[in-house]
C-alpha cells in the first residue's frame, strides 16, 4: 500500500486506463467494454495504491494476489497492468489476436506478467481465493487476496459455497469486491434473477460487509483500508458502479456488456471521456 499518487493523479490514471480499454477493444473488434470501463476506478485504486506488488518482479512470494473471477473484463486488468509497468502499452493493441499474450479471457499459460489466474468461467474465483487465503494463513504470511466478482456472477451457486467456507475459516486476509452495476447480459440483474437483499446475504454468510461508490477513487481506497483492518471475517465490498462509466453515450446501458466500439466510435468516446 502506498500513497505515492494524489487522488487527482489517480483520476488521470483511471482516464488513461479507460482510453486504453477503448483502444484495445476497438482494435480487437470484440470484447467486454461496459464492465471494463465500469471497473477502471477500482483497478486504478488497487494497482496504484492498495496492492503490494512489483511490476519488476511480478512473482515475488509476498505480493498481494489479485484474483479476477470475472475473466470477461480482462481489458481493464490488462490496461491497469500495462499502465503499472508490467509490459509495454503497445502490447495492449494485440488483445484477442492470434499469438497474443492478451487472451480474450486471462490465460496464465500465455505468460503475460502480472496474470495470477486463468479465468472466464464465472463462479470459480472466490473458491480459488479461499484456497490462496488458507494457504497464506497456514504459512503465517501477511499477503492478502483481493478478488473481483460480478453482480450477475453471484447467481452462481458455487460463489455461496465459497462464501460459506471463507467465513468458516475466518479468512480476514480475503477481500472480495462485487462490481454492483445492476446489469448483466440479458438486462437488469433484478429482472434476470434478483440477488437482493445482497448485503444481508453476505452478512448471513458471516462476512464483514462494506459499501462504497465504486466509481469514486477516494472512497474505494478508504473502503479497502477499512477492510484491511478487519480481524476475524472475510470482507466483501459492494461497490456501486456504472457499466460503461466515463463514456456518457453508453453509461448504464447493458447492451454494452459485450459490445465493442468501432474505431471511429472509440475516438469519439475517448474525446468525451470525463
Amino acid at each position, binding site marked *: 500500500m502506498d500513497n505515492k499518487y494524489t487522488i487527482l493523479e489517480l483520476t488521470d490514471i483511471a482516464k488513461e486506463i479507460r482510453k486504453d480499454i477503448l483502444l484495445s477493444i476497438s482494435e480487437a473488434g470484440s470484447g467486454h467494454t461496459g464492465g471494463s470501463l465500469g471497473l477502471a476506478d477500482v483497478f486504478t485504486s488497487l494497482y496504484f495504491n492498495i496492492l503490494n506488488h512489483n511490476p519488476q518482479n511480478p512473482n515475488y512470494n509476498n505480493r498481494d494476489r489479485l484474483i479476477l473471477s470475472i475473466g470477461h473484463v480482462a481489458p481493464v486488468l490488462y490496461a491497469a497492468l500495462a499502465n503499472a509497468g508490467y509490459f509495454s502499452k503497445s502490447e495492449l493493441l494485440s488483445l484477442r489476436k492470434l499469438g497474443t499474450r492478451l487472451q480474450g479471457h486471462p*490465460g496464465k*499459460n500465455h505468460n503475460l506478467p502480472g496474470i495470477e489466474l*486463468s479465468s472466464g468461467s464465472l463462479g470459480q474465483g472466490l*473458491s480459488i481465493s479461499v*484456497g490462496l487465503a488458507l494457504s497464506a494463513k*497456514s504459512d503465517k504470511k501477511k499477503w492478502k487476496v483481493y478478488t473481483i466478482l460480478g453482480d450477475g456472477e453471484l447467481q452462481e451457486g458455487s460463489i455461496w459455497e465459497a462464501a460459506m467456507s471463507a467465513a468458516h475459516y475466518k479468512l480476514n486476509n480475503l477481500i472480495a469486491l462485487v462490481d454492483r452495476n445492476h446489469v448483466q447480459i440479458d438486462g437488469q440483474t433484478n429482472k434476470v434473477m434478483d440477488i437482493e437483499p445482497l448485503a444481508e446475504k453476505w452478512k448471513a454468510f458471516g462476512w464483514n460487509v462494506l459499501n462504497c461508490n465504486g466509481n469514486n477513487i477516494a472512497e474505494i481506497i478508504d473502503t479497502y483500508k477499512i477492510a484491511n483492518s478487519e480481524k476475524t471475517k472475510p470482507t466483501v465490498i459492494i461497490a456501486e458502479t456504472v457499466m460503461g462509466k466515463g463514456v456518457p453515450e453508453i453509461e448504464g446501458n447493458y447492451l454494452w456488456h459485450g459490445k465493442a466500439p468501432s474505431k471511429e466510435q472509440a475516438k469519439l468516446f475517448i474525446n468525451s471521456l470525463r
Partner: protein
Amino acid sequence: MIRKTNNIPTRVGFGEGLKELGKKNKNIIALGADITASVNMNLFAEEFPERFYSLGIAEQNIVGVAAGFALDNKIPFFSTYAVFSALRTTDQIRVSVCYNNLPVKIGGAHAGISVGADGATHQALEDIAIMRVLPNMTVISPCDATQTKLATIASVEQVKGPAYIRYGRDAVPNFTSENQEFIIGKGQELVKGNDITIIATGHMVWEAIKAAEELGKNKILARVINIHTIKPIDKEIIIKAAKETGAIVTAEEHQIMGGFGSAVAEVVVANNPVPMEFIGMNNQFGESGEPEKLLVKYKMKSKNIIDAVKRVLQRKK
C-alpha cells in the same frame, strides 16, 4: 500363475499412499468433502490435522480451494465419490485446475458398478471419458490396493500437473507386489501370450488374468496387459501387442463409449489396425445389487472377456 494374497478395496491403497506422501512432503494438503473416512482420507487427517481442511458437501468449491492452494505451491488432494469429484466439478476442473495447469490431485472414489447397493447415482461409469479429454490431466486407474498406493505416491512424485486417480469401493483381489516398478505412462505385461491381447484397467485386470488362465486350457495363449495410466497412455506396449497378437479385447468397469477401450482404440487404429472387442458398460445406467451380481448382469466378468476373445479371434486375419 499370478496369485492373489487377499481381497482389499483399492481405496485402502489411496489412504495409505496419501498418508505416506504426507510424511515425505510437507506441502501435501488434503481437503475433505464429508466423505473423508469412506475414501480413506481419515488416515491423513488424523496424522496431519494441521494440513487437513474440511470443506463440507461443496464439490465445486473444493476444486477451486484446491486450485488456490496449488497456486501457492502446495500440493492439494481432494477425494469424494468419482461421480461427484469428476462430474459435478467438471467445469471447475477444466478451467481452474487444467487450464491453469495446477498440481491438484483428485481422488475418484467408488468408481465402477462394483459400488453395488447404492445404485446408479453413485456408480461412476463416465469419469474416465471426461477426465481423459481434459488437456494437462493425467488419468491413473490402478488395478489393486497395492498398486493404488504406489499410484497415489506417483501422482505427486512423477506428475507435475493435475492428476486423477480412480479407485473402487469393494474389496478386490490384491495381487501386485509392493516392489513392482510403477511408472506413470508405462503399461505392464502381466501374462505372456501371442494369440490375442487382453488390455485391461482397474478392477478388470484381475478378470483379464482369470480369462487368460481359462483360455490357456483351450490352448489360446492370451497376453494380458495392465494399463494403469490411461493418460498419457503407453502407445508402445499397445502397438507391439497389436503387431504381435493381431487382435485385442479391452476391459474396463466404465462406459464403453469414450472410455478406456476408446483410448486404446485410438492408438490401435492410428498405428496398426487390428480387430477389437470392448468389455464395459454398454450405454446404460447401473442399479442396486451385490457387486458380483451386477458385474455378471452387466457382462464385466472373465467369462465375458473369454466370449469377446472368441469373437475377435474369428475376425483376426
